[in-house]
């Protein structure tokens, strides 16, 4: 599997990653070599194998649906880059 500059740009956009124009070629090379390594997976037929999502095949533990956390807004917003009146600020989205 070989990726070109356009693929890298598309993937970077999907991941919302800003990439310098000058680094794109390098990423195309290294991502291609990683995908080359990964291609070895195709040497084995897995048609009859069940996927394994958890190392011990246990199912997700559930809990009663009730509030267990207290409000810690001020504590958490103290480390935010930009807040006002208890809200997180981002650039204007709606004109």
């Amino acid at each position: 599997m070989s990726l070109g500059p356009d693929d890298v740009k598309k993937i970077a956009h999907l991941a919302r990653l800003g990439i310098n124009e000058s680094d794109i070629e390098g990423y195309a090379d290294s991502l291609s070599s990683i995908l080359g390594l990964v291609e070895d997976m195709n040497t084995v037929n897995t048609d009859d194998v069940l996927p394994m999502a958890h190392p011990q095949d246990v199912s997700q533990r559930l809990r009663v649906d009730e509030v267990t956390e207290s409000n810690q807004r001020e504590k958490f917003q103290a480390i935010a880059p930009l807040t006002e009146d208890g809200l997180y600020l981002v650039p204007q989205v709606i004109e």
Partner: protein
Amino acid sequence: MYHTKTLAELSAMLEAGEVTSVELTQSFLDRIKQFDGELNSFVTVTEELALAQAKAADKARASGKAGPLTGIPIAHKDIFCTEGVKTSCGSKMLDNFISPYSATVVEKMRDAGVVMLGKTNMDEFAMGSSNETSFYGPVKNPWNTQAVPGGSSGGSAASVAARLAPASTGTDTGGSIRQPASLCGITGLKPTYGRISRYGMIAFASSLDQAGPMAQSAEDCALLLNAMAGFDSRDSTSMERDVDDYSASLNNSIEGLKIGLPKEYFSEGLDAGVAKQVDDAIAQYRAMGAEIIDISLPNTHLAVPVYYVVAPAECSSNLSRFDGVRFGYRCEDPKDLEDLYKRSRGEGFGAEVKRRIMVGAYALSAGYYDAYYLKSQKLRRLISEDFSKAFEQVDVIMGPTAPSTAFNIGEKTDDPVSMYLSDIYTIAVNLAGLPGMSVPAGFSNNMPVGLQIIGNYFEESRLLNVAHQYQQKTDWHKQIPEAFV
């Protein structure tokens, strides 16, 4: 001279009143000051906090409320959230992050009376095998400062190897405790997936990540695991299962122990000097009454390819939380929301993290899910079944931890795939969720070699017993690099 003692010895000295926690803590803080400028094994040294905790520990002891770890200073990998203390995860993204809460591991250690010396350097977001991807610069290997300490828990391994801390915590997603333990000549344990809470441990690949102790000996790892292990309702994958007293079975006889040697771990690509030391360790076990059995783990060659789908896929999902909005790095003057996301992430993450996020985003993108992620999950089962079959025949599996001793700084940075292959013997253990250890097994060209011991699920006690018995007959784990004696 406290630094030449094991954690177990220091614990006995504290108990006997031969030293106070304040004296002990100060002596390690002094060593950090003296040596860490060169090693770079710490991101943050919490001197004031450490001395305050040490005073409290001495007070607790004086009032008869001390356990085996009360007053023992250790270091935490900078992936564990520590309330009120910078938690960087080795990244520019979190260079300004003062955690508002503590990880369960940190809380449990604090409750056991452990003193925190500081936070250790690591590969950025634990993605690396050499500690070279850290925003804070590479850590040096105490045995040769031209060489890497391994990664991603490189700072933890180097700080223990140089005796700047008697022990430290680490995390292991594909070998990040065992490989640096091997390269630095210390003892490290990755427990069974789910044995130690992941709460407050910054997530890399959630189905693989597991915390564990890094120390001088198996006996020390047992003491630490006693405090770290246990169910935690705040981690949805934490296992509801009783915790052993990991120190209780250290002295059990290993007469008749069945050791499996997978032929795939002794084939092409294994450095001859490493093979020699591992062979010698196996011979030592044979002399101690163990039975050696040749086994096969036929899907071993698939472990690295599978890992480089599973881990990046999970990382691309986990790291989507870093968006420049709620905490962490935010770019200057974003022109719109997309620019805020893209530049905050582009500027905040280093090259290797970006690479893995992109591999993961690609593998999970429309049209590729079946070919990559689903395929990898199916192969993961085959890899896991190899181990289940082997454990029908043997009690533990042994082999090298890493294919070579520590390589030089800069040697593999231009070739990610060759870097990835340094975890070739450790990765399958994470995919299967099994416990594994690395134990010092001698030297090749004056650099440490690690013996890997893999056990069945929740058999940490057996692993520690098997390692401890070896350490009763050998003194590799007692070696200290000359410059740090």
